[in-house]
């Protein structure tokens, strides 16, 4: 559907569509007008398409003119969200590419997905979550020795815990989320060791990042769980099971979990020096 013209690129279907939509620059529009003057069949089609475009707009315009229902008011939606998450009627799975553009991982989208449709519960992650919450309860309230190795020895701490878990680890930097590393400790987890990092926001609110072997489990999406006021996001990635735990609301904990996920995910799998 092109037409050779000496004074510009040939007319294409994109030109004709942009003509119908009134989106052509004036110079190009003149070229299309000249083309249509020569080809009445094309001119008739374009005219019909423009007419149908207008018909469709007119037919649908009523919906955009209706007053917005109260339940769609942003303030009302936000108020609802700060309570327990609504269980939406529609399960909404994939196609979240857009949502995660900003954070570069699938974590946020997956978290949402899990909230809607808790599928394929990884037993490993379940156990890890319970253990992590227990550890959180045990150590977060500890005044004298909340951590075994303090943040001033962070390099030693991560090296030590990485060696014990047999996987490269780091203490995620959560400064952007308002939390400073206090330190960490080694914990028993069945027959295996687990690592726990503890953070503080300077106002006495603490949260923990827990990691241990994820078994042979496949990578999973985020899972959210609340046990008696303690919230946890857990996931499995690259053979480790992670749990982020705190007494904060879901959205804030999610941003912490996403930050941790990103940093763990970026960790090279072959540790420098191969000292594991």
């Amino acid at each position: 559907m092109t037409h050779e013209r000496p004074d510009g690129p040939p007319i294409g279907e994109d030109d004709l569509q942009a003509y119908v939509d009134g989106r052509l620059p004036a110079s190009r529009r003149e070229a299309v007008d000249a083309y249509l003057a020569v080809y009445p069949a094309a001119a008739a089609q374009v005219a019909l398409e423009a007419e149908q475009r207008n018909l469709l707009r007119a037919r649908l315009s009523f919906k955009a003119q209706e007053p917005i229902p109260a339940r769609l008011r942003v303030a009302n939606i936000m108020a609802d969200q700060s309570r327990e998450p609504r269980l939406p009627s529609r399960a909404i799975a994939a196609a979240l590419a857009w949502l995660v553009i900003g954070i570069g991982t699938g974590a946020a989208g997956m978290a949402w997905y899990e909230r809607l449709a808790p599928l394929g519960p990884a037993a490993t992650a379940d156990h890890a979550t319970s253990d992590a919450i227990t550890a959180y309860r045990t150590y977060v309230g500890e005044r004298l020795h909340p951590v075994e190795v303090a943040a001033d020895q962070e390099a030693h701490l991560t090296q030590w815990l990485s060696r014990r878990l047999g996987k490269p680890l780091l203490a995620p930097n959560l400064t952007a989320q308002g939390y400073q590393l206090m330190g960490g400790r080694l914990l028993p987890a069945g027959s295996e060791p687990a690592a726990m990092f503890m953070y503080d926001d300077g106002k006495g609110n603490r949260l923990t990042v827990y990691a241990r072997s994820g078994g042979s489990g496949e990578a999973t999406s985020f899972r959210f769980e609340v046990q008696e006021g303690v919230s946890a996001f857990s996931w499995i990635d690259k053979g480790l099971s992670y749990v982020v735990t705190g007494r904060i609301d879901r959205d804030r904990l999610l941003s912490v979990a996403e930050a941790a996920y990103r940093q763990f995910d970026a960790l090279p799998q072959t540790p420098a020096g191969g000292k594991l």
Partner: protein
Amino acid sequence: MNEIAALLEPQIPGLRRYAWALVRDDEAADDLVQDTLERAIAHWAQRRQDADLRAWLFAIQRNLFISELRRRKRRGSQVDPEILDGVPAPDPRPDEAAGLRDILAGLDALPEEQRSVLLLVGVEDLSYEQAARVLGLPIGTVMSRLSRAREKMRRFMDGGRGAVLRRIK
């Protein structure tokens, strides 16, 4: 908080119109919009600051709609719109014969991809770039899809009468 409302609420009428055109049911359409807004609010912090808000919202909504469509299809409760492609248009009713065929019936005759591009560009006035982002397609594909959608709409509105003629054009 107020900033979010100030940015989101002007988009709601368009989102409602697009949702209604897709699902053709008042309640279900607003459910879809509500899900869209909830998701947008929950992920507000992760929204890229320079990203196009309008395209982002329509992309969320369309993705939600597609997922729902797929889910129903798996359950077998939804006829694949593509299947309708080969079905000849029914005999025109008297009002249709008089040229009054509802434009929405023409919309329904299109596969979802074509329906969406027609709605996003032709009704919601998204730019071709925005539509390409919403649909996750290169802009050239958007243009040819738009062209095919309008061609199909033309043929449908012609009542199937012209379909044979046009095939040999």
